[in-house]
């Protein structure tokens, strides 16, 4: 298959490592729902999701659905060792926590700190889809 093919627009994402602690997140991701964890005791949301609250150590952490909206805290566009440039960065979710992610479906040259973005899910190689963010 040496025919000229259109270059992929986004980087392929490997299957995420999943475990019992994160399973509800990945099950929801398959349905296009973005879950975060919030502590039932201190009320703080956190990321990445944990069984125990990283702020007060309570075991009462609860899943909640998030609209997955926030602003770009920072990013970097990677040019080295990749067939297609891609952007990695953090989103500050409206609920508080920062989420490490890729920024997709946009001209990477126009990304800006402070820009509003929203979650979407991208297919992975043999695993559940993972959250990525695109400008709104």
């Amino acid at each position, binding site marked *: 298959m040496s025919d000229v093919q259109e270059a992929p627009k986004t*980087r392929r*994402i*490997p*299957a*995420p*490592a*999943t*475990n*019992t*602690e*994160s*399973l509800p997140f*990945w099950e929801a991701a398959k349905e296009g729902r973005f879950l975060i964890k919030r502590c039932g005791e201190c009320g*703080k*949301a*956190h*990321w*990445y*999701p*944990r*069984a*125990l*609250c*990283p*702020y*007060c*150590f309570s*075991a009462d952490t609860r899943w909640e659905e998030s609209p997955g909206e926030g602003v770009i*805290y*920072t*990013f*970097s*566009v*990677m*040019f*080295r*060792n*990749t067939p297609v440039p*891609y952007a*990695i*960065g*953090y989103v*500050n979710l409206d609920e*508080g*926590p*920062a*989420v*490490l*992610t*890729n920024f997709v479906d946009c001209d990477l040259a126009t990304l800006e*700190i402070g820009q509003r973005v929203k979650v979407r899910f991208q297919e*992975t190689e043999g695993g559940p889809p*993972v959250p990525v963010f695109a400008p709104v």
Partner: protein
Amino acid sequence: MSIKGKAYIAGVFEHPTREAIGYTTPQLHAECAKGALEDAGLSKDDIDGYFCAGDAPGFGAMSMADYMGLKLRHMDSTETGGSSYILHVGHAAEAIAAGKCSVALITLAGRPRTARMGMGGGGGGPGRGGPPPGAAFGEVPEAGFENIYGGSTHNTYGMCAMRHMHDYGTTSEQLAWIKVAASHHAQWNEHAMLREVVTVEDVLASPMIATPLHRMDCCVVSDGGGAVIVVSPEVARSLNRPLVKIIGAGEAPKGPRGGNDLDLTYSGAVWSGPAAFAEAGVTPKDMKYASIYDSFTITVLMQLEDLGFCKKGDGGKFVADGNLISGVGKLPFNTDGGGLCNNHPTNRGGITKVIEAVRQLRGEAHPKVQVPNCDLAIAHGTGGSLGTRHGAATVIMERE
């Protein structure tokens, strides 16, 4: 000097599970920690020292410290298999006796039984069903949420530089001055990989690797190594070598710790530096020479600010115009050429930072870069990634 009577065991907890179906290993570590804290009548925020061994998933103590949201000034991940935790009690007592921490947490946890049954899912690690007994690589808690995004040292440090530029107006030209200074030093080092003196323009013209970092903002990849021997005062005085005395040390991990109030413009040096300076009874202004870990130019700039060589946000101005060049500027740094030009053995630059500081204090650096009457020096480093989780370490040395 002895640990005798200098430390107490205040809390213990043994997890009741024998078949941890539905658990992850990090969760077990955290539940054990919680149980021991409750037994002692302490809370998580009281912990300032953390000890773990190879069963703790992740990079040394850093992943678990971040998972549990610990704020630490001492950590130790010495691995001696099943005896590690007894050894850790001894190390914790030493650390407490030396004033390096006052509440030390030691954890052990794992689930070789359920992992072998393929239950609970380590995920992504060796064997997919979970890690083999004693090996925790498959259960790194952040892995599923981070490793998928193509993070490397280049782009995660790039994220820090991007935000630093946004918050403080730092420029690529200012970052380039750090590489320029390193190259001025490397020209005299016959072992250095890159001995050519470069200019700010050269750095800016080098290919973009991960915005805003150019190729010349990045350290070299090299083989090699190093070693250090630390001795008692009695041994030191019995030897025919200049006396390089250790007068202060500090350490601290930093990570997102749950993601609220993320600030990538500072490093763990904001804690390790002041601790080391306080112990040494000196200030940044007293330093005649500085070895500063230079995985990237931004690494140097942030750490210089965090250590207190200049105000936060003023790093760009501080490093510009050759201020880091020996014989030219106010703070000679990395006079061997550093990681940016000399070497970066096995992608770990910490030990070479200590070695060049010792050369300076002994007066054994290259004559072209030797700092006159160099009697106080600092070696500081960052391991892991400033953009995710890292450990900062500072040592201050004095020529006696």
